[in-house]
């Protein structure tokens, strides 16, 4: 049963549950924090608990207090063995080190109390084991096992497989997962979920599982993710301590200029930087969030230029900086020596950064939960009010922020997506299991199904993975290829094959793709780095953006790329690889809702009412309110010119037929569902339209909608094509469409690495997937020839379910089929509507390729000819 904690416990009840000395030590705190009131007693009773609370609410002690207490009681009775009792897992090494330090103090102080009062010397050991831990330290842990082990998901997967270390874990009683919100929505979390099952199997009993999370929704699902299921399929019990909203928040939206609609962007940024420096100078410490690394650099640069803060009290913090640089800045923050820090996502997680007066969010954080997590970094203690200021430089972001504030204040958070049935992670764990001992297929399948992400795993999928790993995939005996494990299907057992397997597992486990980056040089100057996958796609002469400037690719030699600046040119290579945060589905729907609300007020002539709602419910300033109302009015006026009476809403999905200056038809779909859904809708529609017309369709995708660009002179019946895409066939369409994108090659390579098909390290040396030997396209094309091959299936699944959101896309089409939502096709026009501008300018471009390779070759041939003619033969010859 998943239940919410209703009962608060006071000092007396808590102390009663604690060892006397520990209780005395704990009494030195002036008061209990909310999570402590709810969680300490249940944890001391051995219940599994999920605590969701803002930072600064004393989480470390909440979970560790009763554990430390129990270990002291054991020690005093002389019953504390040289075993690991408690395992703490967090995704960040920095956080591991913080927790280690935060535990040392109480343990030393309690130890002192014991010594003074009773003359008892208690030696409670804690240790951190991560990828950084040296061989010597690991050997010492074997001799003197830590009672509390602090580790990462990857190191956990190693220690439960390591021949000697795993034997020290068999008496473990507690396992703590910190920052669970940053794990459960990705494969790292899925990987951890299986490790949790494996560790219990090792111990032969259930452990008390404790999860710690920042603001996230829905907590029930995260709780299930934490505890998993029993063998009979019933859910294990978990108590949810929900103190997400205990910290008071003061939120507001500030528009840097009076009218964002008509002010030139240079003016807007000038005003914005002035506003930011005002905020920084009037506070002790300000943390500014942007969404991208380049944005972080830019903002920091401009603020420094204004010179209102001392140069060493202003800094940027993002993931491209070296570990040392980041550490220095974090330490200075903690010591209160930084007045302003600009960051992208790297300071979202719970590492200790001391006291922040105010958080500024530039642009939209794209998700209510993320917005709250960021704002929650201010006003460190739970009793202080979090100060959050939102600001934006464009209208769409302004509207998003306004809606986000309203949603946050009314406690409506977007839902997290937990990936399911990831076959690559599964393959990795099956190898890990085979390393330790011989398994029956049944017991292994049951163990896997007890974890939340695999609760619905079909037996065939499990078997496909085992068969693949044992080299028995769909081929005759004589063609059996290399198998990592052996399996006897008749006997129903599998196990390790060969001595190399353990080394392969230890050296290659993990789920985070290793992106190899290549240094980029202009003349002899290093100007940045690019991912190898991206470089693989470049041809000499290509123009692309790096560090905000356009460059021309000249060539690559080994790990060096040579470019020259090409300012003012138009990039020829679309940047698929920019991993911008996608807008969440729920926030998208809420934005549609608000825009429609404002429109309704305008229709009724009560503009003041619209403004009032924005001011009151969305906490916007009057400039923001004016800008938002004007934006909606402009769109309405545009639609009226076209003779359209309806307006955008969650139910009304407008499609513009914008004919551009080149005569191409741009179908602009206003689907405010976020990029994860729009990727599905756009690609599957491009696939349908492409099949209908026999051409490759270029498309632009963004959070607010998408554009299909139909080559000129093609007549197309839009509504008829739309009807071909149904809720029951969209999954098939998108899977087929994905098979024909470049994106799948790269994803496949990641999945191949996770499932140990392509190793990162082998026989003691690091392997680079050499570009010449086997590029991602060839690897994918060869493997996709094998019917039902699980790793190809997984690459496609990862794209359509995790990177994209096929389930909500299905839902939307279902709504349309039931008449609950509708497409509204606008008449042809030679201008795009105001709501379409950002989409057309900034969206990410991609292509759904023709499937027919013969057709593709002919098409390419025609393109080459056209280009040669366009250039004039002589000029081309001179170029080459």
């Amino acid at each position, binding site marked *: 049963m998943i239940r919410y904690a209703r009962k608060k416990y006071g000092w007396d009840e808590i102390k009663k549950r604690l060892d006397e000395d520990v209780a005395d030590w704990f009494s030195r705190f002036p008061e209990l924090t909310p999570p402590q009131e709810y969680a300490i007693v249940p944890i001391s009773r051995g219940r599994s608990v999920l605590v969701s609370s803002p930072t600064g609410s004393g989480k470390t002690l909440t979970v560790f207090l009763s554990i430390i207490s129990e270990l002291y009681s054991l020690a005093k009775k002389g019953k504390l063995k040289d075993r690991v009792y408690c395992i703490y897992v967090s995704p960040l090494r920095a956080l591991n080190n913080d927790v280690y330090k935060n535990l040392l103090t109480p343990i030393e102080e309690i130890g002192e109390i014991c010594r003074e009062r009773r003359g008892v010397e208690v030696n409670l050991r804690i240790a951190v084991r991560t990828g950084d831990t040296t061989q010597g330290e690991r050997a010492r842990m074997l001799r003197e096992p830590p009672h509390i082990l602090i580790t990462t998901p990857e190191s956990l997967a190693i220690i439960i497989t390591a021949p000697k270390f795993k034997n020290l874990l068999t008496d473990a009683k507690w396992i703590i997962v910190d920052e669970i919100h940053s794990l459960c929505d990705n494969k790292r979390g899925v990987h951890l979920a299986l490790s949790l099952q494996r560790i219990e199997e090792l111990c032969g009993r259930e452990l008390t599982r404790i999860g710690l999370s920042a603001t996230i929704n829905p907590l029930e699902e995260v709780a299930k993710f934490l505890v998993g299921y029993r063998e009979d399929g019933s859910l294990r019990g978990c108590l949810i301590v929900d103190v997400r909203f205990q910290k008071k928040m003061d939120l507001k939206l500030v528009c840097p200029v009076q009218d964002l609609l008509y002010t030139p962007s240079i003016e807007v940024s000038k005003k914005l930087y002035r506003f930011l420096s005002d905020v920084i100078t009037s506070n002790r410490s300000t943390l500014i969030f942007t969404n991208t690394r380049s944005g972080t650099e830019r903002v920091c640069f401009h603020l420094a230029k204004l010179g209102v803060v001392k140069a060493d009290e202003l800094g940027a913090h993002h993931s491209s900086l070296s570990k040392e640089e980041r550490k220095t800045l974090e330490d200075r923050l903690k010591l209160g020596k930084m007045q302003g820090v600009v960051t992208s996502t790297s300071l979202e997680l719970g590492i200790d950064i001391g006291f922040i007066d105010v958080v500024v969010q530039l642009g939209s954080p794209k998700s209510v939960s993320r917005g709250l997590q960021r704002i929650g970094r201010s006003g460190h203690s739970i009793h202080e009010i979090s100060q959050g200021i939102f600001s934006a430089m464009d209208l769409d972001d302004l509207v998003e922020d306004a809606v986000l504030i309203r949603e946050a204040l009314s406690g409506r958070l977007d839902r997290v997506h937990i990936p399911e049935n990831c076959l690559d992670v599964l393959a990795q764990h099956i190898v890990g299991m085979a390393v330790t001992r011989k398994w029956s297929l049944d017991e292994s399948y049951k163990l896997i199904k007890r974890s939340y992400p695999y609760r619905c795993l079909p037996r065939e999928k499990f078997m496909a993975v085992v068969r693949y790993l044992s080299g028995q995939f769909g081929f005759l005996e004589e063609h059996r290829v290399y198998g990592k494990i052996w399996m006897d299907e008749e006997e129903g057992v599998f196990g390790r094959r060969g001595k190399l397997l353990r080394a392969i597992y230890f050296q290659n486990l993990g789920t985070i793709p290793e992106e190899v980056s290549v240094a980029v040089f202009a003349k002899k100057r290093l100007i940045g780095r690019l991912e190898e996958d991206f470089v693989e796609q470049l*041809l000499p002469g*290509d123009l692309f953006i790096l560090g905000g400037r356009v460059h021309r690719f000249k060539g690559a030699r080994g790990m060096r790329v040579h470019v020259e600046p*090409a300012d003012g040119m138009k990039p020829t290579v679309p940047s698929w690889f920019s991993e911008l945060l996608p807008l969440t589905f729920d926030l998208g729907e809420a934005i549609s809702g608000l825009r429609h609300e404002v429109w309704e007020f305008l229709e009724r002539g009560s503009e003041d009412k619209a403004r009032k709602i924005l001011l009151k419910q969305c906490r916007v300033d009057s400039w923001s309110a004016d800008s938002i109302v004007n934006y909606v009015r402009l769109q309405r006026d545009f639609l009226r010119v076209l003779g359209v009476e309806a307006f955008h809403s969650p139910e009304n999905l407008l499609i513009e037929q914008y004919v551009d200056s080149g005569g191409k038809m741009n179908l602009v779909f206003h689907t405010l569902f976020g990029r994860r859904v729009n990727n599905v809708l756009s690609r599957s529609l491009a696939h349908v339209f492409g099949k209908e017309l026999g051409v490759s369709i270029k498309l632009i995708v963004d959070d607010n909608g998408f554009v299909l660009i139909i080559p000129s002179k093609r007549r197309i019946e839009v509504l008829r094509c739309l009807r071909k895409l149904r809720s029951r066939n969209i999954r098939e369409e998108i899977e087929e469409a994905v098979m024909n994108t470049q994106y799948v090659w790269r994803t496949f390579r990641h999945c191949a690495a996770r499932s140990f098909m392509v190793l990162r390290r082998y026989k003691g040396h690091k392997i680079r997937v050499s570009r010449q*030997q086997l590029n991602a396209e060839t690897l994918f094309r060869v493997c996709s020839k094998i019917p039902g091959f699980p790793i190809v299936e997984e690459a496609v699944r990862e794209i359509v379910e995790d990177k994209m959101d096929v389930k909500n896309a299905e839902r939307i089409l279902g709504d349309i089929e039931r008449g609950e939502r509708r497409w509204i096709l606008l008449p042809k026009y030679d201008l795009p509507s105001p709501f379409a501008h950002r989409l057309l300018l900034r969206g990410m471009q991609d292509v759904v390729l023709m499937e027919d390779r013969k057709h593709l070759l002919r098409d*390419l041939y025609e393109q080459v*000819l056209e280009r040669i003619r366009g250039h004039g033969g002589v000029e081309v010859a001179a*170029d080459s």
Partner: protein
Amino acid sequence: MEASRLLPIAEDIYIVDPWPAVYIESLDTLVLADLHLGVEGALEKEGIFLPLNVSLIVSKYVEEALEDSKASRLLLLGDVKHEFGFPNPSEWIEVKKLLNGLLARRIRVAVIRGNHDNYLISILRRLNTPIHQTHLNLDKYSFVHGHLPLKTEEMGEVIFMGHEHPSVRIRAETGVTHKFKCFLVGDLRGKMLIVLPASNELAGGVDVNVASPSEFLSPILRGCDLGLFTPYLLDPGHAVHRFPQLKFLGTMSYGRA
């Protein structure tokens, strides 16, 4: 003979569409290059474990091309197997199986020795298949592997070679880069040179429209003006298409600057 399956590239010479094979009508001979049987084994040593047997695919190409051309003789332009050293058992099996199948169908097989073909002689001798150390001349045609410099004066009017595994990378209007294997047809000191693509998809090659001459594997090609060669782009099993000379493909992406 189904004419529709044969794409003429010169008098008497055809590409067997859509396979990595050339057919010479007057000799009734099919030519393929660089089968690299057993390449999976080499990839395994690099930590890439392919779950499939590529030899099956390669053998299929050979058989389909024979079927489509109805040729009575097969010439393999070297690198029949991949490993330089002593063949591993599976490689041995693959080579034997392919040749046995061909012999059973009364196809005459001859092999030009490639740089990967050490140890191949003993297998071939047992199967009564001749192997030619440097080249083979038949009428006006010469066949070489391509890893050694050529004595042009000893060659016929048309020279066939492998070894380079040529491919091109080409950017479509849509912005996507595609990689295709290709045949190359051009002039070598007054003679016609025809370069065949590798028959094995997993055998990496050189992107001839992007690489500089010093990166070419074959000493023969390093001395040619490759820009004047005509490529025939190939997706094995799917399609072949003739393209303008390589120099035009090399400048593809400048077109949009």
